[in-house]
């Protein structure tokens, strides 16, 4: 980072930097070092190691054929990898979209005035506060063939045997996984959207209403463009989390072929430790796919912002 040039650009090119200014600037940079060091070492280190290993660099196993693309070749050459990738993206996308719709609806309701508002402001944050594993336990309790919904169906005489209840968990449709993600992430998206709604106030909506817009038009033409930053950032985080999540697909998933994080984990726990390199190739693939999708999403959003004349 060029310190002197940034000073120059800030306070005019002619002005010379005093020694005192330079010292403050130096201390400012020093304050950024710890956070930088931790993220670069852990994050960057893990990234570099993963890439090196997936390309055949693992001297501690006596494997060193770097650079060797055969691990990626073997992985990408198998059809189960693509099925796994498809499942991973399907669960992540469907649950993010459902959570987004539910979250926006909830945030729109929360800006209104109503008697039990305080209660709801506590209530909707509850799933945010507890681990995913609790959500999974609740899904098992509610959605399994012997679960509460199945009992209710029996109570209303719709079925008379647990086996007749439609299989929700442990199928590749993944409704159990999606239910857990939606349960946990609707509050997150609500929080982000609600925060933005509070920030923008209601003036623009009022103006649109005075000009004769109906509710539908107001939402799509006035409110939605304004809450879009909150929508984009929260869905980015949810989607990335869903792609990399392990516990829900592991417990509630339909078994082989698994989602990619579960596949990677299985490679790592295999007795044949050379499969760990295959696992690393899987991990790098997850990162690549997520990176490409998220980058495309952000780029599309930026383009939209520019078209709207915002930056």
């Amino acid at each position, binding site marked *: 980072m060029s310190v002197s040039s940034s000073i120059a650009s800030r306070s005019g090119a002619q002005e010379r930097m005093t020694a005192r200014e330079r010292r403050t600037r130096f201390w400012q940079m020093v304050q950024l070092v710890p956070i930088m060091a931790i993220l670069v070492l852990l994050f960057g280190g893990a990234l570099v190691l993963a890439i090196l290993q997936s390309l055949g660099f693992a001297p501690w196993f006596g494997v060193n054929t770097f650079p060797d693309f055969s691990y990626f070749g073997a992985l990408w050459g198998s059809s189960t990898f693509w099925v796994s990738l498809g499942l991973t993206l399907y669960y992540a996308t469907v649950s993010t979209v459902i959570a987004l719709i539910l979250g926006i609806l909830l945030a729109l309701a929360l800006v209104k005035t109503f008697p039990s508002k305080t209660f709801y402001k506590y209530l909707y944050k509850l799933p945010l506060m507890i681990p995913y594993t*609790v959500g999974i336990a609740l899904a098992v309790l509610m959605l399994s063939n*012997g679960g509460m919904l199945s009992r209710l169906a029996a109570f209303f005489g719709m079925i008379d045997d647990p086996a007749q209840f439609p299989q929700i968990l442990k199928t590749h449709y993944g409704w159990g996984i999606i239910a857990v993600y939606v349960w946990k992430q609707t509050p997150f998206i609500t929080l982000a959207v609600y925060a933005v709604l509070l*920030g923008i106030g209601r003036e623009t909506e009022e103006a649109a209403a005075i000009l004769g817009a109906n509710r539908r038009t107001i939402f799509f033409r006035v409110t939605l463009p304004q809450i879009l930053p909150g929508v984009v950032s929260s869905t980015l985080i949810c989607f990335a989390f869903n792609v990399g999540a392990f516990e829900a697909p592991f417990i509630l998933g339909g078994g082989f072929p698994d989602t990619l994080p579960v596949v990677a984990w299985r490679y790592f726990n295999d007795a044949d430790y050379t499969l760990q390199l295959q696992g690393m190739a899987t991990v790098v693939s997850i990162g690549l796919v997520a990176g490409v999708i998220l980058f495309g999403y952000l780029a599309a959003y930026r383009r939209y912002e520019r078209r709207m004349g915002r930056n």
Partner: protein
Amino acid sequence: MARKFNIALSSRLSPFQKFYLLIIAGFILGPFIPLIIQSFAFRWAWPDLLPGTWWLEQRDRAMVPLAWDYVLSPYSRVWEATVNTVLIGSIVTVICLAICLPAARVLAREKFRGKSAFEFFLSLPLIVPEAAIGIALLMMFIRLGLAGSYVGIIIAHLIPTIPYMVRMLTAVYQGLGRDFEEQAMILGASRWQVLRLVTLPMLLPGVVAGALFTFLVSTNIFLLTFFLGQGQIVTLPTLLFSKIAGGTLDASAAGITLIVTLPGIILLIISERFIKEEAFGKGFGN
């Protein structure tokens, strides 16, 4: 026209919204009712909506609910997991604060070249899938001898917590402004006095909010703890995972689920006073 105008602008709930809020309450809270029932059940066969035999009817066999007797005994490792969760969460919060406070001050007040790139870099851990980081970190930590140790888990927990902490603290510093500190200096306060009497008291609510949120994120982390703990260190999320990994939920697992929920409820009640929705007004990413 006037009627339409009223509907479009009303600050009251529409009938659909009333219905929707009820559905949401059922969706969020509903599953906890059978969970509580399950933890007190002695025998609960399939089509019954309520347990066939409650523990109360079996008092001659067990003085306390069977599930709770197990949950509260050392065999379930619940106490150990709770202590671990709170301990790791607290240490992570303290370290995270120490790292992020100075950085947030610089980010809030100074302009420098590459600042937006740096900010993007800081939020990167939020959008890189956890599984990718987790497994690669595990390989690294095995080399370094940190796998299965508290140090390793605490270091790993810094990755997802730093982005939130630095963002919340930056917002706090931006809101604080420099005026009050300058006023105090003009009136002859020393640097230490400014820090102690002006900066810290004004920062405190925001710092508490950031600390609570970091603690919350840390206590909810499953994947990093599970991968890096190597089964040697259990926290509440990993303990519950091992109980339900088979895909069934018995009475003791229901009890443990309730215990795992408890810290979240406590945090929710405390944090509602400190964490305001407005703090997230700028969004999380980019």
